């Protein structure tokens, strides 16, 4: 069976098998079609929970979440209160307690390339190369960060606008004065802005930049240039509304020690009215070139100039009203190009690689913004959503093609996703369910200050008082018994089981106020959750799962869940030496089966904590 000389795992976060199949049938994804025809498809790919960090940790280790220790998007830090807001994001290799396949192969003297893999950084390899995966984007830092916080190499996206945006700087145009080399035209107006750079791993010094807008003809103001000084000849770029700038490469000064770091960004002029009263310039994140590749000298193989990471493809800016869906698709293209360039450059520079592990996140970001549109009952909305979906998958298909072309023939290629998704339904407020059973204190804030209360946000307006709660919902699928050992805990050890029973009853009995039906599919003791791979140290005392129609895209339910044309299953394909062609494996398999299958196909050593099984039937010589 061991005939492949190399392995490449290409991950596509949240690729939904049913949606992928529909698009393959449309004929718009030639490289995914190639995978299907030239390889084996696992029709029912499962993992639990259906969440990014635990799933990618399983794909990397062959171990279940109860073993590798990552059971949610968020991570409980020992010694803290159980309140969910005290958890941190569960990314990075430091929290993975099982041995990864690349660490095992590295110990055996093999060379592994790990590119943008969420649960990888920091590297412990002696022979391999790692490009930072400690979040969902390359060169992004989320380890131990709370909430949605993250930091980038070099800085996150922002916006310059006459309007007010959460992530922006407000600017006001005035008459342009003191400029050199003005272009042809009239009605020149300007602003000066002290642009600061947000969410940086190395805080950067702000820069004073100047915006110049003018009328190139008779129809009012229609051009904009961003300049480092009042000299148009030095403009970074000139734009019309709706256009992207070329990549801008600059030196950015690190505040702490004054050193200069090269960075690239792009800008898109989202809005410019003919009187310059309304103006919005979206600035992409600044993409650096150092600090996120190990060993550092390996970065020399990658040409970072002219490309931007486009972290989260502008999803937060979309939510914040800065950019539109078209711009999201464009950013997805930039992100994919950056990643493909980095990955293929490392493959070319390291032809002696044995293992290549990578992940791309475009599809997941897209679905978080647009899955409800993709599944909308309104035909016009659905058509628009599916058009966007098609374009995103086409970007990923092109990315797949570039990687397939860069991989030698003797490579076993594995393409997978971590989970699927279903359109958001009525959300179960777990705290309300527990409160209804007298288990939890969850009350509206008492304040007369308008800014203390925001009507639509429970998280902002409600207070879960841990000190008055027997049970605390935490992370996506867990409820903890608030034992006295926790800060603010009030449950005695001898009452643990009775409280736990009450939690399970409360969840199972609860009827959703919108539908009148029970939203909870399953609620079990943590030790019972071991049966399906959970119930480890990061598990709550009760583990519960929701019916798919009560969830928000993914994370809360079983991988068998499906609504509309979507499913929570993951995709899983194998292609390469000795792999059956055009074969569909008909039975359920787990993501934990990938590592043992890879090792069986190559003869590579098994990581220490592997628990999955070999998918024997995909190999030609099985029988």
């Amino acid at each position, binding site marked *: 069976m061991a005939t492949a000389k190399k392995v490449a795992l290409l991950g596509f*976060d949240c690729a939904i098998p049913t949606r992928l199949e529909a698009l393959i049938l449309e004929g718009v994804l030639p490289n995914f079609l190639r995978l299907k025809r030239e390889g084996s498809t696992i029709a029912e790919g499962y993992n639990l929970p259906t969440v*990014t960090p635990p799933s990618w940790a399983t794909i990397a280790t062959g171990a279940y979440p109860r073993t590798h220790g990552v059971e949610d*998007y*968020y991570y409980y830090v020992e010694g803290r209160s159980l309140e*969910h807001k005290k958890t941190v994001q569960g990314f990075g290799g430091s929290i993975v307690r099982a041995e990864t396949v690349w660490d095992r192969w590295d110990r055996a003297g093999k060379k592994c390339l790990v590119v943008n893999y969420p649960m990888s950084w920091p590297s412990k390899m002696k022979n391999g190369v790692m490009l930072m995966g400690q979040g*969902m984007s390359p060169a992004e830092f989320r380890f131990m960060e709370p*909430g*949605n916080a993250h930091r980038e190499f070099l800085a996150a996206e922002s916006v310059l606008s006459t*309007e*007010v*945006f*959460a*992530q922006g700087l407000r600017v*006001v*145009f*005035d*008459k342009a004065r003191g400029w050199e080399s003005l272009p042809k035209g009239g009605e020149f*107006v300007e602003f000066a802005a002290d642009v600061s750079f947000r969410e940086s791993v190395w805080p950067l010094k702000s820069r004073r930049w100047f915006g110049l807008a003018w009328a190139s003809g008779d129809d009012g103001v229609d051009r904009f240039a961003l300049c480092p000084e009042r000299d148009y000849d030095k403009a970074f770029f000139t734009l019309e509304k709706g256009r992207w700038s070329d990549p801008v490469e600059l030196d950015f000064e690190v505040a702490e020690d004054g050193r200069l770091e090269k960075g690239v960004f792009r800008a898109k002029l989202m809005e410019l009215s003919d*009187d310059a009263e309304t103006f919005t310039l979206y600035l992409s994140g600044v993409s650096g070139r150092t600090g996120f590749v190990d060993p550092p000298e390996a970065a020399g193989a990658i040409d970072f100039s002219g490309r931007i990471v486009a972290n*989260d493809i502008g*999803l*937060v800016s979309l*939510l*914040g*009203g800065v950019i539109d869906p078209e711009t999201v698709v464009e950013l997805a293209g930039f992100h994919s190009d950056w990643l493909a360039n980095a990955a293929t450059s490392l493959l070319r520079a390291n032809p002696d690689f044995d293992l290549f592990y990578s992940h791309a*996140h475009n599809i*997941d*970001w897209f679905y*978080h*913004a647009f899955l409800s549109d993709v599944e909308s009952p309104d035909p016009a909305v659905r058509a628009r959503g599916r058009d966007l979906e098609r374009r995103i998958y086409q970007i990923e298909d092109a990315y797949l093609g570039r990687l397939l072309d860069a991989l030698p023939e003797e490579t076993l290629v594995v393409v997978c996703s971590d989970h699927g998704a279903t359109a*958001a339904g009525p*959300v*179960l*407020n*777990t*705290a309300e369910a527990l409160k209804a059973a007298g288990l939890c204190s969850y009350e509206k804030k008492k304040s007369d200050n308008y800014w203390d209360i*925001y009507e*639509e*946000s*429970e*998280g*902002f307006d*409600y207070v879960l008082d841990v000190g008055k709660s027997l049970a605390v*919902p*935490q*992370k*996506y699928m867990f409820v903890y018994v608030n034992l006295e050992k926790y800060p603010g805990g009030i449950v005695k050890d001898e009452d643990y089981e009775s409280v736990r029973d009450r939690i399970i009853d409360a969840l199972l009995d609860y009827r959703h106020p919108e539908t009148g039906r029970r939203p909870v599919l399953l609620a079990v003791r943590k030790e019972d959750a071991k049966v399906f791979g959970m119930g480890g140290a990061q598990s709550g005392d009760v583990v519960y799962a929701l019916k798919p129609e009560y969830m*928000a*895209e993914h*994370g*809360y339910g079983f991988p068998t869940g499906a609504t509309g044309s979507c499913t929570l299953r993951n995709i899983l394909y194998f292609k390469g030496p000795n792999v059956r062609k055009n074969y569909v494996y008909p039975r359920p398999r787990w993501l934990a089966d990938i590592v043992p299958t890879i090792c069986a196909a190559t003869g590579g050593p098994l990581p220490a904590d592997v628990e999955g099984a070999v998918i024997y039937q995909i190999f030609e010589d099985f029988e």
Partner: protein
Amino acid sequence: MADIKTIVVRVPEIREFSGPGCDELLKNGAVFSDYRDGEIAGLSDADAGRARAENLETALARLKDGRDLVLLRLERPVFEAGLLELLEKSDRRTILAVVSPDRLVFYGFGVANKAGVIRDPAAAADVLPTLAMVGEFFLEGSPAGRVLYRALKNPNFKQVQIEKLKAALGRLEKMLKRENREPWDKHDCA
């Protein structure tokens, strides 16, 4: 500090003057030729007192400081030069009403600068109500004057500003909501 500044300038009869300041004013302002001069009403005594600037230098300093309303008189000897300086030094977000015995001219921010000469009758009592449609000062009581809509680029300017503020508030609340999600809320992996 006002975002939009307003200045009302009392001047001698404009038709007696020519020069770059007058030319600019009459070319790019909204000019009411059928104008009946009188008292410019609509402010409380206290507000009027605070707004009054004794000379051009003081007026310009107050505009630079972001004062919402300035009242100024330019006498004959300094009119053209003063007007020119005022036009050059006031920023883009300043609306100007030039009140003379023979005509009323609106100029600057929010003004229909291609309106040219408007033959609709206008009166002194109309000046502040018209300016208040764009500016950020408060009128007192129930002014008797009309709003001279034809002077304005967008008669719905204030409503547009309100809509923009509502949209901005909505965006900020959305981001606030995102940062305060409960674990069962929609998440976005971003």
